[in-house]
Structures are given as C-alpha cells and as structure tokens.
C-alpha cells in the first residue's frame, strides 16, 4: 500500500510485535514474506519507519525487509532500562525469530555501530554487513581549556541526573505536526520539511493537547559513560563477512565525522567504504535510490561470490 503523505513512502506490508523477554518490540516488514530476510537497524532517536522510502526499494529487489523499533522507540514498549547491550540482545531475539541462517544486516548510525559489535561477537548471524554512516572512530573533543571541559562534564552529569530524578512524570512536549517537524530539523537539518512532517505522522501520536513523538521521554541526547568511539572501529578488521560502509560527506549534528580515509586502515579483507558526496548523515533518506542501488549490487555480488 502506498502512503501518499510523502512521495515514495510505503507503509509496511506487515506490522506486528514480538516479545523480547518481557519487552514488546514492534516489527515492520516490506516485501514477499517467503523471500530471504534482510534486516534494517535504525539509529538512536529514530524508528523503523524512517525506512519507509528506502526499505520498499530493497523489497522490490526481492528481499523480505525486516526492521524493528528498538526498545523505547517508535511503537515498541517503553522499558524500565536501556543499554547498548540490551539493544544488542533485542536484536538477537528479532533475528532468531525470523531465521536461523546467516542474513544480511544493514544498520544506520547507532544501529550501524551496534551491528559492528554484534557481527564481531556473533558472526554466524551475518551473511553481509552494511553500515550507513555509523562508524564512530574518535571522540569529538571541543578545543577548550581543561577547566572548561570539566565544567561541561559537570553540566552533562548533573543535567542527566536531574533528568533521571524527574523521569517518572516526564512526558514529551506536545505540539502541532509543524512544530514537531521543526524541532526534529535541529538534529536533521538537511532533511526536507515535508519528510520530517511525514515522520511526525508515523513516529508520533496525536493526544488531546497535540502531537508527541512516541519515543520514551526518559531518553535524552548527550549523557556519559565509559564507552569510547574508537572501540567500534577497532572491531572492523576481524569481521569475516562481506562489508560495505557508506558514509555521508557533509558533517551535521548527528554525524561522527568519519571519512573513508579514517576507515581504510581498519577495513576487513575484501571490505570497502564509499563516500556519498553531497549527502549528510541520513544518506539513505537524502539519496534513497542511489544507496539502495549500492546495497542491492553489493548483496548481488556477495551472493554470486558465495
């Protein structure tokens, strides 16, 4: 079924939930149910239906495209706890639900970085790995004096803890579709306003006092922890499956600023990394046809090589 709210956007052919040890995860599928599965993993603060234009292009090439809303995102349940490891475990449960054979997996942004770690830990699940602008390689440290950096860290810490103290009664700020789209444009500045408005309709809900994103209000940007970006890229060289990285050239709020020359020394044998000139972090939304074509070609090559 075609959703006419945005050109090329297609409502998933099938939508359902699965239980991930007590957390209900929303599944969205495009394409023939009997076709081979291809998993799409969304980025942080996104949701599966951000693939509404991109996924149907892959489905049209003969794949059963399966995406899920990570816990707390989209139509999935708001959990008590969120963590990187929890998200990886949920991914395993989704994959196990659909297949016991290696399958191709594509991840964008945080979803891409997560899948690098899962591919390293459990390579038997992956026939191919595609990463869309999700290869963190170094922390972007502002060029400021040490005492200023400490002040920023204190601000991050207290801001996060103050937020946690208030999460029990937190709710997302309501607004019109246009207001929510404008807010999202702050972190997605290159994407068309019409697309962002479409995202509000599929990623938000309309309450009596206005629209709200479905995203769990306990989640917020920033934060802190022991994780370091370089821990992701150092997992790349050992990956045994065919690997394709696709990076956006234009830096923006959500980008890691990673370029092919940063990735090149870490590429696994036979892997490659391409740069999409003129595109930002959301390469598959800015240039869906081109990126889909690259993915389909990559998967076709991999199949014929196998």
């Amino acid at each position, binding site marked *: 079924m075609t959703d006419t709210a945005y050109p090329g956007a297609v409502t998933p052919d099938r939508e359902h939930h699965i239980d991930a040890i007590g957390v209900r995860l929303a599944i969205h599928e495009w394409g023939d149910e009997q076709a081979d599965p291809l998993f799409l993993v969304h980025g942080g603060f996104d949701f599966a239906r951000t693939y509404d234009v991109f996924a149907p292009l892959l489905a049209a090439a003969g794949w059963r495209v399966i995406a899920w809303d990570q816990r707390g995102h989209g139509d999935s349940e708001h959990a008590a706890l969120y963590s990187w490891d929890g998200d990886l475990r949920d991914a*395993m449960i989704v994959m196990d639900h659909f297949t016991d054979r290696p399958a191709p997996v594509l991840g964008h942004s945080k979803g891409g970085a997560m899948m690098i770690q899962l591919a390293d830990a459990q390579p038997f699940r992956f026939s191919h790995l595609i990463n869309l602008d999700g290869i963190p390689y170094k922390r972007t440290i502002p060029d400021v004096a040490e005492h200023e950096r400490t002040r920023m860290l204190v601000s991050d810490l207290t801001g996060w803890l103050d937020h946690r103290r208030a999460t029990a009664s937190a709710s997302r700020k309501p607004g019109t579709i246009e207001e929510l789209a404008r807010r999202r444009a702050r972190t997605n500045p290159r994407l068309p306003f019409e697309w962002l408005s479409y995202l509000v309709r599929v990623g938000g809900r309309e309450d009596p006092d206005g629209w709200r994103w479905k995203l769990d209000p306990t989640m917020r940007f920033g934060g802190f922890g022991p994780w370091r970006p370089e821990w992701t890229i150092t997992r790349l060289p050992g990956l045994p499956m065919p690997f394709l990285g696709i990076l956006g050239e234009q830096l923006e709020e959500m980008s890691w600023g990673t370029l092919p020359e940063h990735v090149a020394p870490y590429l696994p044998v036979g892997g490659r990394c391409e740069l999409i000139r003129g595109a930002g972090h959301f390469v598959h939304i800015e240039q869906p046809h081109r990126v889909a074509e690259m993915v389909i070609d990559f998967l076709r090559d991999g199949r014929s090589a196998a």
Partner: protein
Amino acid sequence: MTSVRFLTHNKVRLALHELRASDAGRPLLLLHGLGESSFDHVPVWAHNWPGAVHALDFTGHGGSTVPLGGGYAAEILLADADVALAALGECTVVGRGLGAYVALLLAGARPSLVRGAVLCDGPGLAGGAVAPTSQSFFVLPAAQRAPDPYALFELSRDLRPPDYATTFVRLALEGSAMREPIAVAAIVRPPWLAAVVDQVGVTTATIDEALRAFASA
C-alpha cells in the same frame, strides 16, 4: 526497628531502608554489592555513626523492582543512588563492591551533597574489563526475582577504564569542600580502584577510621 520507604526512579520503585533513625548529624547511606541487598541492621562498623543510617536496594535487588528485559549499567545505579540522595539530602556514603564503584561515581557527580565516600570490598568490586573484550551476548530466561539475573550478568562485566574512574575523583575533589572526599577501605584493588587510590583527594583507611574522619568533617 527498621523501616522502609519507596522512592521512584523512572519505572522502578527503589526500597530505601532506614536502619536507624536520628535527627542528629548527617545521614549515612549504605550501597550494597552486586547480588546483595541492604543490611537489615546497622552494621557493627557504623554503630558509632552520629546520624541516621539508611541503605538502598539498587534496581533489580532486594525490595526494589526487578524490571523485565535487563539493560543495566553502573550509571543507572548511580541515578538510583542519586534519587536516594535527593530524598535524604547531604550524606556520607559507604559502598561495598559494586556499591563502592557507584559511591565513587556519586561522589564525583554530586560533590556538594556527598560528604565523604568510603569504598569497601564486596561483590562486584572488580566489574568487567578496562577495554573492549570478545565477550558475547546471551538471552537469559525471564526470571522476575531478586537479584535479577540480568543485573548479575550485565553489571559483572561493565567496562571500567581507570581513567574514567579517576575522572570522578577529580570531579569530587573540585566540587567538594573536603580535602580528601574519598576513602578507600578495600583491600583488593582492581585496576580502576588502583588508579583511584593514586589520586590526590583519596585517602586509604579502615571503614572505622574513614567514618570517624567523615563524621566530623
């Protein structure tokens, strides 16, 4: 006679036990180790503490909520402890094992409210590695009982780089009015704690010595 009250942290009800009531002096907040729960009495080393004595059950432990689906991190337990701090006001904190690590994070994150943190031996003191490992991931059967198996699994392997831990020492020292806001009573010193001990603002002492010093600070 002990009593318990419940605090809310997101979707979790946290059990905060009052082991000894007192209006005098500063409260003492006890943080248990991994897989433990709060003491049901004032431990002998805290008998001489001049104020009230409280003990918190972390998420997934003791009388606190055991959530479904895991997702634990030391930083979430830091937020648990911070919710207790919000309820109690300025405290001295004693942590065992995992609770010692959380006490350090709390001392750095809320230096004006934590008047001394004592880091003691106990379950979960070491935590995980100091850098990424080849550890895999596993789905555990659902078991909604305390201690939550996911807490045991995830919090026993959380990464603890020494320079991350020492950042919290620096924050504690910069934000505290005390000269030495952290006391290490632990005999065993995993890498993160060995790095902490070497920092300015950290002293080594027995629990008794540390509490005596903090009681008058």
